[in-house]
C-alpha cells in the first residue's frame, strides 16, 4: 500500500466508462471472459495516461495482470484485477483456478450483500406503509367522528329541551335520529378498536381485579333496562368465590356489559341470569343465560367472526357486528376462552373463563 501511495494513484477515484471498449475491465464485463496482460495500462487506460500506469507497474514490480469478470446468474456485475509479480508463463493452471474460484466467491458475496440491501429497503418501505396505514385509520376515524359529534350534539340538545319544549311526536323522531348517530359513532369506535387490538396497538392498563365487583357494577347498570323489558334479571355469585384476575378493568367491564346488553337485546320475555363460579381451582367462569330466541349451530359457529350479526333479518335488533368479535379478542388477550351454547327458540348461554 505504501508503494501505491507513493505512486499517487487514488484507486477509489478511478472511473472507467463502459464505452471504453479496448479496456480489459470493460472487455471482461462485456464478454464475461478472463483477460491477461503484461501491460497494466490495458487495465486502467483511458483513466490517466498509459505512462502513469506503466510507471506504477515498474515501481510495484507487476509483471502480469489478470482480469476476471464477476458473473451472477449469467450477468456481469463487475470485474476483479489480480496483479502478480510473475511472468505469464510462470502462472500455472492451479493458480489460475484459485483466482477464478475466488472471483466467483466474491461475485456471490456481492450478490448477497445487494440482496440484503434490497431486503432491508423492502422491509423499511413495508414499515413505512404500515405506519401510514395506522395514521390513515387514526385520521379517518377523527374525520368521521367530527361531523357525527355535531349531529349527536345538536340532537341531544333538542332532546334535553335546550331549544324549548319539544312536542311528543317530534321528540320521538329526534330520539330516533340521536340513536342512529350514536350507533354510527359506536361503529367508528369499534372499527378503530378492532384495528388497534388486531395490530396489538391497544394500550392495556393491566391490574389485579376482583371480577365479582366488576360484574356487580355492570349488572347494576342494566337493572332498569331489564325491568322496562319485563325480564327477570338475576345475578348469582358462588359463595367464597376466588375472583382475582389479571386484566384491564375498563376492557373487562366492556366485555361484560357487551354480553349482558346482548342477552337483554335478544330476549323479549323470560329470564336473563348472570353468574360467576370457579369450575376449577385456577379458573373463574362468567356465564350469562337467556331465554331469548337462541341460535342454530351454524349461527353459533359464525358468531364471533368480524361483522357477523345474529338474526340480522329480524330487523329490530341493531348492532355493529363487531361487539362479540372485540369481546373474543379481549378475552383471548387476557389468556381466557369464550364460548356459546344455544338452541333455537330456547335461548343462549354465553360464557368466558379467565385464569385466577
Amino acid at each position, binding site marked *: 500500500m505504501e508503494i501505491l501511495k507513493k505512486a499517487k494513484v487514488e484507486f477509489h477515484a478511478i472511473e472507467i466508462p463502459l464505452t471504453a471498449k479496448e479496456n480489459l475491465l470493460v472487455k471482461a464485463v462485456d464478454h464475461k471472459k478472463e483477460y491477461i496482460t503484461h501491460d497494466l495500462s490495458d487495465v486502467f487506460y483511458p483513466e490517466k495516461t498509459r505512462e502513469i500506469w506503466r510507471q506504477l507497474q515498474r515501481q510495484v514490480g507487476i509483471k502480469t495482470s489478470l482480469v476476471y469478470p464477476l458473473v451472477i446468474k449469467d450477468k456481469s456485475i463487475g470485474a476483479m484485477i489480480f496483479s502478480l509479480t510473475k511472468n505469464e508463463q510462470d502462472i500455472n493452471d492451479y493458480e489460475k483456478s484459485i483466482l477464478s474460484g475466488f472471483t466467483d466467491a466474491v461475485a456471490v458475496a456481492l450478490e448477497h450483500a445487494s440482496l440484503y440491501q434490497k431486503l432491508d429497503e423492502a422491509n423499511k418501505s413495508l414499515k413505512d406503509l404500515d405506519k401510514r396505514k395506522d395514521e390513515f385509520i387514526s385520521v379517518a376515524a*377523527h374525520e368521521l367522528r*367530527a361531523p*357525527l359529534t*355535531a349531529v*349527536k*350534539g345538536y340532537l*341531544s*340538545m333538542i332532546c334535553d329541551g335546550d331549544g324549548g319544549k319539544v312536542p311528543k311526536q317530534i321528540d320521538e323522531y329526534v330520539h330516533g335520529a340521536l340513536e342512529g348517530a350514536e350507533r354510527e359513532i359506536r361503529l367508528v369506535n369499534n372499527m378503530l378498536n378492532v384495528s388497534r387490538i388486531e395490530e396489538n396497538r391497544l*394500550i392495556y392498563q393491566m391490574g389485579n381485579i376482583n371480577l365479582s365487583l366488576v360484574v356487580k357494577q355492570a349488572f347494576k347498570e342494566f337493572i332498569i333496562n331489564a325491568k322496562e323489558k319485563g325480564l327477570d334479571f338475576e345475578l348469582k355469585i358462588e359463595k367464597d368465590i376466588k375472583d382475582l384476575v389479571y386484566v384491564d378493568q375498563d376492557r373487562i367491564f366492556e366485555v361484560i356489559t357487551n354480553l349482558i346488553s346482548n342477552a337483554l337485546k335478544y330476549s323479549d320475555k323470560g329470564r336473563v341470569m348472570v353468574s360467576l363460579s370457579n369450575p376449577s381451582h385456577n379458573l373463574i367462569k362468567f356465564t350469562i343465560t337467556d331465554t331469548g330466541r337462541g341460535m342454530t349451530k351454524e349461527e353459533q359457529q359464525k358468531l364471533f367472526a368480524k361483522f357477523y350479526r345474529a338474526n340480522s333479518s329480524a330487523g329490530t335488533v341493531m348492532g355493529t357486528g363487531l361487539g362479540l368479535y372485540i369481546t373474543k379478542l379481549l378475552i383471548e388477550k387476557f389468556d381466557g376462552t369464550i364460548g356459546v351454547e344455544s338452541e333455537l327458540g330456547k335461548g343462549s348461554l354465553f360464557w368466558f373463563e379467565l385464569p385466577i
Partner: protein
Amino acid sequence: MDHKPRIIIVEDDTLLSKMYSTKFVAEGFDVLAALDGEMALQFLHDKPTPDFIIMDMMMPKLSGVQVLEQIRNIPELAKIPVLILSNLQDPAQIHKAKELGIVEYLIKANYTPSQIAEFVKNYLAKR
C-alpha cells in the same frame, strides 16, 4: 367565584364551536370561542384569565399539544385547567397531552354538550 365562570373553547370546526358555545352560554358561562391555537393564545394574552379551557387537538396553525406547551410555560397561565376534547385517539398524542397536565382527555364523539358542561361545572365546583 364572584364572576360568571369564564371559559375559552378552542375548536376549529365552526359547527362544533357554535354548538359548545351555545351550550356553555346557556349554562351561564362567559364564552370565548377560539377557532385555532393562535387565537386561543391571543385571547389568553389579552386577558382576563379564563377559569377553564376546552381544547381540541388537531387544529390549523398550532395543535392542541403546542398550545398546551406554550400555556404551561407562562407562569400565570401554567395552572389553568384544560380539558382536551378531541376525536383524535392517538396514544402518543394522548400521552403527551397528559404529561403537560390536563384535567382529562375526552373523545368528543362519545359525549353530549350537556355531559361536557356537567363535567366542567363539577370540576369548577370542587376547586
